[in-house]
């Protein structure tokens, strides 16, 4: 998927003006966010689990080369094939070549953000393979020719009538809108046929276990199970960070992932596959391929300030918690990963310059940090990236701030470096504001305050500072 992070402001404005999307997206708070809070509350050792999850991921990422080598060995020992892809193009080509070699006709895809990075479904359709998304949300998005809106709820912005138009050829505006059950059953019917004829599947990976070469897949729908059962070729794709050392680590990681994602204690299906079908099994793929992709992750890994972002297990909790995501929606972020996690990984993976609005689009409220099951300090990383775009701190070419903006902050610094200037500046501001103010508030102000006054009244600077008031008080003038 080609990043279009540069359009953040205009895309955000579109979503802010779309009443239907604003209403649909509420579900991420009322459903997922509240669900996570309840799940955490009923889990006795919730904070310990988060601490443990963070420790497992910190350890794994710090030894990523070791564990990737171990994982590849284990998968091969299980009879699987491993392909290391430096970027999305290499990964895509490997899968397409494989499909040609195996005479594949129908490919079923199970939800995978990494395959979105590759733009895989579109590319495979272009190559002549019938390629169908099987997660219901992804299927809806594919029919709408859009990209996912959310990490775990790709079609959260769609209304029932939107979905009816996509699933039911006979549906017209003004018809009775089918309910969610009717729509889901329409999709079941359509997708059943696809499952039965599929000869290749592409799935994501929730966790890859280094020691055993196991792939854990978490779904509620069962498409992950279908994908690892019916087709003769199974390709699992993963970002190189989606790895944990031991089978035993799965209990911690699954608990925090699922509770943080949907608030469930467990998803309906957790599937572990250890390579292709074993000799005594009734069915299952004849071939298993694991594609391990970098695609810019090394830039996060080599950066000590950003490395922690590779701990992410893609639960979506930071999106649900984020007041900005809940207003601007998933498409504004312009690449595969929306919300707070997207605002820190997209700039590094796709280029800080175009994405400079992403780290700025945050009130730094910290709700994402609070919600993260592996405690990624997202606000801290947003601030790191702001430094890069404001001052070009790591690379002069990454600076996107305007000369005017830099001038304002220089002037601010001058004003703050001495108490006299601080007081004089404030008194002058007070004098300038006073004629325009009513009851101490401004309705309109010149830039840069005009942004504020477009929607809110602005307070005037006080005629006297606290210093002056306190000194009068200490002289007995209280």
């Amino acid at each position, binding site marked *: 998927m080609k990043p279009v992070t540069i359009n953040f402001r205009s895309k955000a404005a579109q979503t802010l003006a779309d009443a239907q999307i604003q209403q649909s997206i509420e579900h991420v708070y009322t459903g997922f966010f509240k669900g996570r809070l309840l799940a955490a509350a009923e889990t006795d050792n919730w904070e310990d689990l988060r601490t443990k999850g963070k420790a497992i991921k910190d350890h794994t990422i710090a030894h990523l080369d070791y564990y990737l080598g171990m994982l590849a060995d284990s998968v091969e020992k299980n009879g699987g094939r491993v392909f290391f892809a430096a970027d999305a193009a290499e990964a895509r080509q490997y899968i397409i070549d494989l499909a040609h070699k195996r005479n594949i006709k129908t490919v079923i895809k199970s939800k995978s953000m990494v395959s979105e990075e590759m733009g895989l479904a579109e590319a495979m359709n272009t190559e002549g393979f019938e390629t169908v998304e*099987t997660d219901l949300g992804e299927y809806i998005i594919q029919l709408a020719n859009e990209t996912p809106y959310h990490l775990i709820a790709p079609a959260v912005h769609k209304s029932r009538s939107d979905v009816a138009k996509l699933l039911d050829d006979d549906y017209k505006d003004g018809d009775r809108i089918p309910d969610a059950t009717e729509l889901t059953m329409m999709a079941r019917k359509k997708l059943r046929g696809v499952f039965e004829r599929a000869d290749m599947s592409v799935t994501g990976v929730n966790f890859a276990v280094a020691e055993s070469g196991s792939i854990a897949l978490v779904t509620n729908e069962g498409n992950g199970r279908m994908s690892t059962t019916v087709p003769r070729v199974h390709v699992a794709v993963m970002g190189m960070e989606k790895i944990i050392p031991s089978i*035993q680590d799965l209990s911690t990681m699954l608990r925090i992932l699922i509770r943080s994602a949907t608030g469930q204690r467990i998803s309906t299906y957790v599937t572990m596959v250890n390579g292709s079908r074993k000799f005594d099994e009734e069915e299952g793929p004849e071939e298993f391929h694991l594609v391990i992709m970098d695609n810019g992750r090394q830039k996060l*890994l080599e950066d000590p300030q950003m490395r922690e972002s590779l701990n992410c297990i893609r639960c979506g909790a930071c999106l649900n918690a984020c007041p900005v995501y809940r207003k601007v929606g998933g498409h504004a972020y312009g690449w595969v990963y929306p919300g707070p996690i997207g605002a820190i990984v997209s700039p590094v993976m796709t280029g800080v310059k175009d994405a400079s609005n992403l780290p700025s689009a945050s009130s730094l409220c910290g709700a994402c940090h609070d919600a993260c099951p592996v405690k990624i300090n997202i606000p801290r990383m947003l601030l790191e990236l702001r430094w890069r775009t404001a001052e070009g701190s790591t690379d002069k070419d990454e600076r996107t701030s305007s000369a005017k903006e830099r001038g304002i902050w220089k002037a601010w610094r001058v004003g703050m470096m001495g108490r006299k200037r601080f007081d004089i500046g404030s008194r002058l501001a007070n004098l300038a504001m006073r004629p325009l103010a009513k009851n101490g508030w401004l309705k309109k102000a010149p830039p840069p305050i005009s942004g504020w006054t477009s929607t809110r009244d602005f307070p005037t600077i006080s005629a006297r500072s606290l210093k002056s008031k306190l000194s009068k008080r200490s002289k007995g003038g209280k």
Partner: protein
Amino acid sequence: MADRAKFLAAVTASLGRTVVLVPNPDSATAGFDDGVLAKSNAEMAMADANTRSRELVDQMADAAATAGWKVHRACNPETASDLVASICEEKKASSVLRSKHEVLDQIGIESAVTSTGATLGITEHFGDNSSALVDNSKSSAFSADIGITGVDYAIAETGTIVLHPRSGLSRLISLAPPTHIAVLRHGEVLDSLDELFAMERSDFMSGKLAGSMNLISGPSKTADIEGTTVTGIHGPLEVHLIILDHG
């Protein structure tokens, strides 16, 4: 094409090193526990499942109901058999598939199902999974009305049943038919995911890891349309858990 050596060398360089550093065994992960410890953890888990079986079964029943199973308690095999028959009748099933789990014979599954007029089939390839046989079992699973299995384990924490697909236990019979019935016995319920993965790791350490494992917790479901939960998107619309309390 990025080869493995080149890829991994680049990762090592990104970590600021020139050679791969072997992790310290005192790390956060359980990956350094040896086979002996893994085995004793697994034995403890199994012993716990037996000594606390009554309590764990009760917890399982509650958690399973929360997860969306229709939970039935059967005080003896005959009751379990009647429950299976009545579900077959209610679903007007004509084609039923079973796994090879022993508990199904114990409750007399054959007569329970056939007495309702349905056929009862089993897929068992005994290692001969030539594509014709596999295609055959796939199509019978997709056309079946009900799939019936025992459980390999269950997990009280989450209301989960665990199946290790193998000869006589198709991956599809708990997935493709619109109704799935699982029959559970005392002693099969583990406390939590910790115990399950302890056993799984012990299997791995002793070279006996199964080809795959499915954890199933309720019916197939989705909330992808307006956040409304709907069951039965791809897998079963209805799942029954029959707990055999006898013995």
